[in-house]
């Protein structure tokens, strides 16, 4: 149960709260890195999108988000602004983002 609550903490509270351990587990730094990268995305993408709004990216499978970002980046998929944005991220960053949004759950 504690592990489950801890996982939620890493998702909802981007900055690590636990500082008791001397050696910070790498997972927390990875989560923090993902949360920082993802911060700009919520400028447009909301949890509960409306009909003509930006699509929801929260709680979608990581593989789907990754594929979407990669196809925006390559131009295989035509967006309006996403092609230009996706080009700004490398594969590792896209992987981080995909997993971050996948764990964020659906609309509140």
């Amino acid at each position, binding site marked *: 149960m504690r592990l489950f*609550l*801890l996982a*939620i*903490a890493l998702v*909802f*509270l*981007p*900055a*690590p*709260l*636990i*500082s*008791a351990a001397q050696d*910070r587990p790498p997972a927390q*730094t990875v989560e*923090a*890195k993902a*949360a*920082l*990268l993802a*911060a*700009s*995305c*919520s*400028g*447009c*993408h*909301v949890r509960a999108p*409306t009909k*003509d*709004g*930006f699509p929801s990216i929260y709680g979608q499978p990581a593989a789907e988000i990754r594929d979407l970002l990669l196809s925006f980046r390559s131009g295989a998929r035509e967006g*309006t*602004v996403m092609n*230009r*944005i*996706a*080009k*700004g*991220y490398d594969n590792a*960053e896209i992987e981080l983002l995909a997993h971050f949004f996948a764990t964020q759950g659906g609309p*509140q």
Partner: protein
Amino acid sequence: MSSAPNTPSRRRFLGTAAAAAVAAGLPVQLKAAGSPARVVVIGGGYGGATVARFLLAADPRIHVTLIEPNRALYSCPFSNAVIAGLKPYSMLRFGYDGVAATGVRLVFDKATRVDPAAKTVRTEGGQVFSYDRLIMAPGIEFIWNAIAGYDEAAAEIMPHAWKAGPQTLLLRKQIEQMPDDGVVAIAPPTNPFRCPPGPYERASLIAYYLKKHKPRAKVLILDSKESFSKDLLFRRAWKELYGDRIEWHGIFDFGPVIAVRPKEMVLVTEKREFRVDVANIIPPQRAPAIAQDAGLADETGWCPIDPVTFESRLQPGIHVLGDASIAGAMPKSAFSANAQGKVCAMQIARLLNGEAPIQTKLINVCYSLVAPHYGISVAGVYRPGEGIIEEVENAGGVSPTHASEKFRRREAGYAESWFRTITEQVFG
């Protein structure tokens, strides 16, 4: 200084009871001394309101105080639509109840003096706030009389409407009341300034209004630059939608507007004078006095910052974000301020927890409406470079020069969606 901060329900903001329970149950180790860190935020605009509430999201133990003179913000984004009579003024107004509900302590007062050595902020109302870290998001101030004759009094006759509120309504009224064959002049400043595409979106939507209601009237842009944001897109769209209704002159045509005579409604350039019916002067800008007086600004008038943490390069312990900062390649926009606010909040939470900040990337997207259903955008992805924020190469850019009506319509829809998203996130 007052003692206990507000502690309204943070559960609401954290979103789930589980997360709140976790936050309560984890060991607290915020400072060596054991007392929670105090962060003061100056400015409740898109940058300040964002960083304040996201600091609490990152670490609910931080005591966050937001000092803002006005009880509500009037949004500059979408104010052009109000000026053109397309949207109601009420749509621009955002109160701070949502921000306060997250646990941020709102202080409706004007910060007048920062003492970086003593780490205090004094206000007009006589309050004194001590801080462990200070975040300044004070926006811009105008450099009065940089254009001879354009002072605060002149702005009541020739509005800038570059801070939304009464100025927005003033400009709207003037456009409604102008003669049917009149001229609206817009005089944009040199770079850098708040909202690079803003003057041109304004020209576009005013032209939309004039085409419908005063078809013999014109918009005259007397620019102090030789080019502007999204200019190819704007100029093509102007021709397509408005014919000759918008006349843009770059700096090489007449020179910049160097003086005004408000009572005569005259704008003076190097080569000639223009008598107009409505004059929208957008004067040169700089970081406001609260930042200048604290030693945060350099000779450019803006505040240099660390590109990872937004900490001032001139005063340690003070962070600057939004329009007042030198954010390198990032434009001075609400989107930028909001993105910077979220990132800065997380970095400061890390610093307060004794952790190193993490290099990351930020995004800016600026939507402009050339007409209600014709939207264009400019986007950029940014990362910390050599001491300054740089644009990621081969990314970003403007909307395609050639695009279908459907594409332009979609971007116009996204412009409205963005406004709903961001204002809900920041003020909701």
